[in-house]
């Protein structure tokens, strides 16, 4: 029964992961090529290194291959005259115009494009930049309206040929970037990042370890503290402390976590107020084993854990309290009460066991909460974990790392759902008896 559950979840997971990965790959590789072109343009100093750089880049990322298994393109893709707009050339021409502020250079370049035999691949684009020297210190002449008018009138064609409205479907087979990337992925090789040429495997592994230290601590804190607080508040329902705690939990849920993080840093780490905890990062790690290094970095971990867990704590507390209250209104509690059991005994023996189900349905939600909270918390506290890796790779446009992270997050979400399914199976005897 359990195996069937796991298999079913897995079978739904694989096509959806494939779809998301292909979508991200499509969007990301486009942006990667643009970014790459603009980077090569800006490095105008030594042209002798270019061939080697291009070869290395292309070997790693296979940019000369088509993108996906099939191609759905304009009929006149690659035919500049009929197409009437220059796909990558437009950026190159615009940059050339703004940097050199000289229309004659741009006309030279366009003649060069038209005269040579063109294949729209990055190798050709970059090679074509070679004979033209870009000036080092020319400013972006964006306010020169004459130049812009010239650009708009001469370079853009106002007639769109009717054959442009047709499209062409091309089947690429397995000789494409996506297939290569996926086959490398299945064998366990995630590639190299663009920013620093390190292996992504190592990067992800260390970042995941660092994030897990905080996430596991915060998960323990959330569930233990949330459930025990709900239990206590339910038991001493009519006292003042319970009402105050209730309102306090509700109030806490509304605080944005980056604000709380900054306030905690201000209060606890600067010498102005209190100086209890260190603020950023992990400090020096002298121990080698995992447990000892975690214990050594414990002062660094406390503040991020609080920031990660307070929101989910409020959620678990509210749901647990709601579950306890709705359970206590049912018939069997009345029966137990009339039999003579005290509230304490009923709580422990009956209500708690039945109230677990709404909380289990929260488990997957809390996984996601902790993952998405860790983006901001790790960014603020400068902890080298998964969240910081995501935000850094987004800000630096490091796409291979981003694909690996998307895969990691979908696997994480999937495992969260799987965990909640397994917990349901474990706690509910009715599911076990369904065999």
């Amino acid at each position, binding site marked *: 029964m359990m195996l069937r559950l796991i298999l079913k979840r897995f079978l739904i997971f694989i096509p959806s992961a494939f779809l998301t990965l292909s979508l991200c790959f499509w*969007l990301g590789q486009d942006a990667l090529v643009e970014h790459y072109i603009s980077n090569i343009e800006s490095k105008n100093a030594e042209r002798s290194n270019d061939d080697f750089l291009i070869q290395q880049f292309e070997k790693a990322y296979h940019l000369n291959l088509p993108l996906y298994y099939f191609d759905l393109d304009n009929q006149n893709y690659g035919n500049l005259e009929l197409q009437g*707009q220059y796909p990558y050339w437009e950026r190159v021409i615009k940059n050339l115009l703004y940097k050199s502020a000289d229309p004659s250079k741009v006309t030279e370049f366009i003649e060069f494009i038209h005269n040579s035999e063109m294949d729209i691949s990055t190798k050709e684009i970059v090679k074509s930049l070679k004979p033209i020297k870009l000036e080092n210190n020319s400013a972006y002449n964006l306010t020169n309206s004459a130049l812009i008018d010239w650009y708009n009138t001469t370079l853009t064609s106002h007639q*769109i040929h009717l054959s442009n409205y047709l499209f062409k479907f091309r089947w690429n087979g397995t000789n494409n970037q996506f297939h290569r990337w996926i086959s490398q992925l299945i064998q366990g090789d995630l590639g190299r990042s663009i920013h620093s040429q390190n292996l992504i495997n190592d990067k992800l592994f260390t970042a995941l370890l660092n994030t897990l230290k905080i996430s596991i601590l915060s998960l323990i804190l959330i569930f233990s503290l949330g459930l025990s607080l709900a239990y206590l508040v339910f038991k001493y329902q009519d006292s003042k402390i319970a009402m105050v705690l209730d309102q306090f939990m509700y109030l806490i849920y*509304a605080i*944005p976590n980056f604000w709380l993080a900054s306030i905690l840093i201000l209060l606890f780490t600067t010498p*102005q107020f209190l100086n209890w905890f260190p603020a950023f990062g992990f400090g020096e790690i002298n121990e080698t084993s995992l447990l000892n290094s975690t214990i050594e970095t414990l002062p660094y971990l406390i503040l991020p854990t609080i920031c990660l867990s307070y929101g989910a704590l409020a959620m678990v507390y509210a749901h647990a309290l709601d579950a306890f209250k709705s359970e206590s209104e049912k018939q069997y509690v009345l029966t137990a009460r009339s039999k003579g059991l005290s509230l304490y005994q009923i709580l422990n023996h009956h209500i708690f066991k039945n109230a677990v189900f709404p909380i289990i349905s929260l488990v997957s939600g809390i996984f996601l909460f902790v993952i998405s909270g860790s983006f901001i918390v790790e960014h603020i506290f400068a902890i080298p974990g998964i969240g910081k890796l995501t935000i850094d790779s987004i800000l630096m446009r490091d796409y291979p790392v981003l694909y690996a992270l998307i895969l990691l997050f979908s696997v994480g979400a999937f495992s969260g759902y799987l965990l909640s399914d397994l917990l349901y199976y474990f706690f509910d005897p009715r599911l076990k008896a369904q065999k």
Partner: protein
Amino acid sequence: MKKMKRRHLLAFAKISLGIIFSIGIFGPLLLNENSLIPYDASTIDVRAMNYKAPALSGLHLLGTDAVGRDILAGCVYGVRNAFVFSIISVSFTLIIGLFLGILSGFYYDNGVKLKASWLFSFIIGILCFFLMTYVSLPTGLEIATKTDYGLSILLSLMVSFALMTLSYLLFNILLKKSKVKVNVDLWINRFMESLDAIPSLFILITTLALIDANFILTAIVLGALMWVGVARICRAEIMKIKAESYIESAEALGLSNFSIIKNHILPNISRPILIQLIFIFSNCILIESTLNFIGIGTSIAEISWGSMLAEAGQNLHAWWLLVFPGIFIFLSIYSLRVLASELDSITQDTPL
């Protein structure tokens, strides 16, 4: 000692929301170059650079930031930022979520009965339109902003419409008015589950990284991610309402499905959906501040609550950058949530 009752909390929430709304609407009128406090959100006061502390004697009531921009003006103009963003997101959430929720809730037992020819021609028309505008004309994601682009969208619309009518006539002749049952409930459920699986903040950040988005596009993408809650509540409520006897009698009287939805179902689900929308509104304010904090978000004015908090994180001695925008964010989110929960408990207390 006064005990804080629930209605006091509700009154506090309403008053603070009213204050924030009026600050958002009337604040920029008072904070011009001409009036009492002559600081805009982006005026740079050279005399007050480098983090002046708040001083009641001077004109910068809440202090300045590194460049010299006033914090009070930033907070006031930030209200506009957050609320316009959230209103756009919430309206898109409402449109998508209401439509899909009603579709899956109302037709959950049998599915929608459509004429087969209409369905196929509709699919062909939509495919044709998207292929023509997004595949044929532009290449890749660089959609050209040239003068002819509007004309080409119009042309592709006309061609797809013509193709749709032609194929409708053709399929009518071929299939002879046969009906088809589309089980929308199952597919919309699967779609909702798959959208729920990935954290929405992550999807939002990655789509903003991959597509260069402006303010309105970000709000639309956020609206396209948060509709799941609305659709779920819609579906659950409609399934409850459909079991009532007045719907059955309306069907027996011969009312069409559309008029049943319009006259009976929509008024009854409006209250739970409103509660959910207020909650989503507060979440949108939070996400907008988060995006501006990270540095990825875009804004109407240059300054926003989140960006002020980001600056405060670097320079912790300037506590006024941290406290005042944070109070605004916290007050708006908290009062919206209190409002939503009070409405929720009101609907639960009244017997049907």
